């Protein structure tokens, strides 16, 4: 994959070829590519399920698929998108590729564990797809007992084991990042000179490490109950129906912060680069990431306000849920303040970043509706909730992921993608997204429950608008797949720093050599030193090779 013009310089892609060089690599950059392939595959599988759901909801009657099939569709859409796309996407692709580069290290602390995490991810995926092929699972991605443990006769155990296995790939990634960021920063790279991308991934890794095991044991207990008849969640024996919900949401709410925090890290980088300014209030944005990770563990009860939870516990969880909203607000205001007096250019990554700020603001604010006890009684388990979390997942996390892929594509491949096509795709995605999910807020307050295969006729017009939006969104997502693959062969060769961005990853070649830096940098300046210093680091033996 080296262009005709460029002289034969060895880098991590052309150092060796063949399947073995990819399937047995321990280079964090190649493992990032392996994850990119896996994550993209599952994104389009999940997208297929979403398309079928939206087509079914065109009409109030259930005339496209059976009720049973519809239930399996939304379950597999949830499971595939959450566990196999949203959670791994930014950390495992961009995090794996960039964290060693950004902190001036040669690789992650445990490269072989990193490769093992990819195999574990794929093994979990195989289990889940096998369950889908064998007949699917119809419990919803939340697997609430006693339906999932006793009453459902679909492939719950197989799917649950698949997710159990994939959880360990998150744990290994989190472990790798925490140890790498603590022990392998280049000389001079203090914590407060780290790029905010690294801060965000550090906070995410805390959640990987302290949250994922709880979902692992919870799903294992559900599997034990189905396979060996253990009576842990069985109401017949006097089991507490809310125990599963507590254990499940203890992980699954912090999991939504796993999905958004890396996105926030990407956005801090994009806003800084394309305004050519230091991120406004660096310390506050950095600590906000940590605050979100920690407070994120205290709020899970807001999923259970109407589930028979005690009114006093609901009050505690509602108050804590208000507190977790504050760091997100701080971040949004700081990003907006970064634009002030900047020099803003509207390349594709910046369009994704600006779109992120707008959509994340709406997503975050609608979260307050759900954290407010009085309103949640009405909107819980309706399309209001669906709209809220899609504004965060699709509107923010996926936009940030695409923005990050476009921004670091020249660094990963040494090639530039076609800018006009990319801007077009970003705008299509922004418009298609809003048309798909904004009507669902209205549907939600009207009271349309989620997971409904058949719905009253008065909700049809809004549903048709939503399906129309979904088709635009689908087109928007296929475009990047096309022109990014096209750019691998025919893209313009990108130099070391096409965007004139600050950060150690932009001070080595594109694509970088296997050991990332010919000479280990010594960091002397703050992060995002736009207008202050030529480069954040000095290199003991003069300029870095291959300027």
């Amino acid at each position: 994959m080296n262009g005709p013009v460029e002289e034969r310089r060895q880098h991590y892609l052309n150092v060796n070829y063949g399947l073995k060089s990819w399937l047995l690599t321990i280079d964090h950059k190649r493992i990032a590519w392996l994850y990119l392939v896996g994550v993209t595959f599952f994104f389009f599988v999940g997208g297929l399920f979403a398309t079928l759901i939206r087509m079914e909801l065109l009409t109030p009657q259930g005339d496209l698929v059976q009720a049973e099939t519809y239930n399996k569709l939304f379950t597999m859409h949830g499971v595939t998108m959450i566990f196999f796309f949203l959670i791994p996407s930014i950390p495992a692709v961009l995090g794996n590729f960039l964290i060693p580069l950004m902190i001036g290290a040669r690789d992650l602390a445990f490269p072989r564990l990193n490769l093992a995490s990819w195999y574990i991810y794929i093994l979990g995926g195989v289990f889940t797809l096998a369950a889908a092929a064998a007949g699917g699972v119809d419990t919803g991605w939340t697997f609430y007992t006693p339906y999932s443990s006793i009453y459902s006769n679909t492939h719950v155990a197989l799917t649950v084991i698949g997710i159990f296995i994939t959880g360990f790939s998150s744990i290994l990634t989190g472990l790798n990042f925490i140890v790498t960021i603590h022990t392998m920063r280049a000389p001079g790279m203090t914590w407060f000179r780290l790029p905010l991308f690294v801060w965000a991934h550090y906070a995410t890794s805390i959640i990987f490490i302290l949250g994922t095991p709880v979902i692992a044991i919870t799903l294992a207990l559900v599997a034990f109950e189905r396979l060996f008849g253990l009576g842990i969640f069985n109401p017949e024996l006097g089991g507490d129906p809310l125990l599963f919900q507590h254990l499940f949401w203890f992980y699954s709410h912090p999991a939504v912060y796993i999905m958004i925090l890396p996105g926030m890290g990407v956005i801090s980088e994009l806003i800084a680069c394309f305004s050519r300014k230091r991120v406004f209030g660096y310390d506050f944005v950095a600590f906000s990431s940590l605050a979100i990770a920690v407070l994120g563990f205290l709020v899970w009860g807001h999923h259970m306000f109407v589930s028979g939870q005690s009114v006093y516990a609901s009050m505690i969880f509602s108050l804590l849920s208000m507190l977790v909203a504050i760091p997100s607000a701080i971040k949004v205001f700081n990003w907006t303040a970064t634009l002030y007096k900047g020099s803003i250019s509207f390349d594709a990554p910046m369009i994704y970043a600006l779109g992120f700020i707008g959509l994340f603001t709406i997503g975050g604010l609608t979260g307050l509706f759900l954290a407010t006890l009085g309103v949640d009684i009405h909107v819980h388990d309706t399309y209001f909730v669906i709209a809220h979390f899609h504004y965060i997942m699709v509107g923010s996390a996926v936009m940030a992921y695409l923005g990050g892929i476009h921004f670091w594509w020249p660094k990963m491949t040494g090639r530039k993608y076609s800018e006009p096509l990319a801007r077009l795709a970003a705008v299509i995605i922004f418009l298609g997204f809003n048309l798909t999910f904004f009507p669902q807020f209205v549907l939600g307050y009207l009271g349309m429950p989620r997971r409904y295969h058949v719905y009253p006729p008065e909700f049809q017009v809004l549903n048709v608008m939503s399906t129309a939006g979904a088709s635009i969104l689908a087109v928007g997502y296929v475009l990047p797949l096309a022109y990014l693959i096209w750019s691998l062969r025919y893209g313009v060769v990108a130099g070391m720093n096409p965007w004139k961005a600050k950060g150690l990853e932009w001070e080595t070649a594109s694509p970088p050599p296997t050991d990332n830096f010919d000479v280990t940098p010594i960091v002397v300046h703050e992060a995002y030193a736009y207008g202050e210093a030529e480069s954040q680091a000095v290199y003991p033996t003069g300029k870095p090779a291959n300027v």
Partner: protein
Amino acid sequence: MSTLGFPLFPEQASTMAPRVDQLYYFLLGVSVFFATLILILIVAFAIKYRRRSDDEQPQPIVGNLGLEILWTVVPLSLTLVMFVWGARLYFITFYPPSDALEINVVAKQWMWKVQHAEGRSEIDELHIPTGRPVKLIMTSQDVIHDFFVPAFRVKNDVLPGRYTTLWFEATKPGAYRLFCSQYCGTQHSGMIGYIIALEPAEFQTWLSGGAAAVPMATAGENLFRKLGCISCHAANDTGRGPSLAGLLGKAVRLQSGATVTADENYIRDSILEPQAKIVAGYPSIMPTFKGLISEDGIMQIIAYLKSLKREEGAQVKK
């Protein structure tokens, strides 16, 4: 229906609906304000500070503590207002008034069975009088369901093995949609129905109409005798078990020293799991009735025990 031919906002048909909507408007107002504020700032900065030349380099700005405090304190105070206002409504919704008309609901995979105290029962429909609080005592025979009436802005999960309650007061007659809003299996979307609110007079005629049905209290009394409860739980503590007259709402001291308020859940647990809470001063000899009595049977006995409260006053006088 709005002029568009389809609704954009749900009907307000209960006393709580306007209050929830007020809070909703407040939240909507705050959200629209901040969303437009951010939108205007982004668009303004994007236009004003767009890059003029490729090597343009703006002055670096590190940050501003005053601003940081501002956009921490303002969101915090707004969210606390939301919290307090929301919690207040939440408490009102989960604190049923004592004079409410009690109706029993049993949820079962994919249908709602409603049982009025006067004996009349309905499937997937609930007739209620307007202008009077109605308290639903609900339980599920299989998985978790959720009784949701959008027009009343109220819902609560229906759990297996436990009673959950829900109350509302209809303000205008009409038929309002009922949804099950906790995923419960294949026909989850078919488990719907209507709440039919009638004027009190019409409600009485509806109630007395229909097939002659045995009031729950009477059915409960027959069951109380048939299952032999009467042999231990005789009136005025003459039997081996505690007298159950006036039990509802009374604080009961247990053998373990704890005191528990006797509500519907307490009675249900004591019927199905008698050893779990032994009343102080009584031997723990009560057998479990698990499997010998249906959900409806338990509700009938509870209705009978509630009716005892009124009679006990009479007995003492005799």
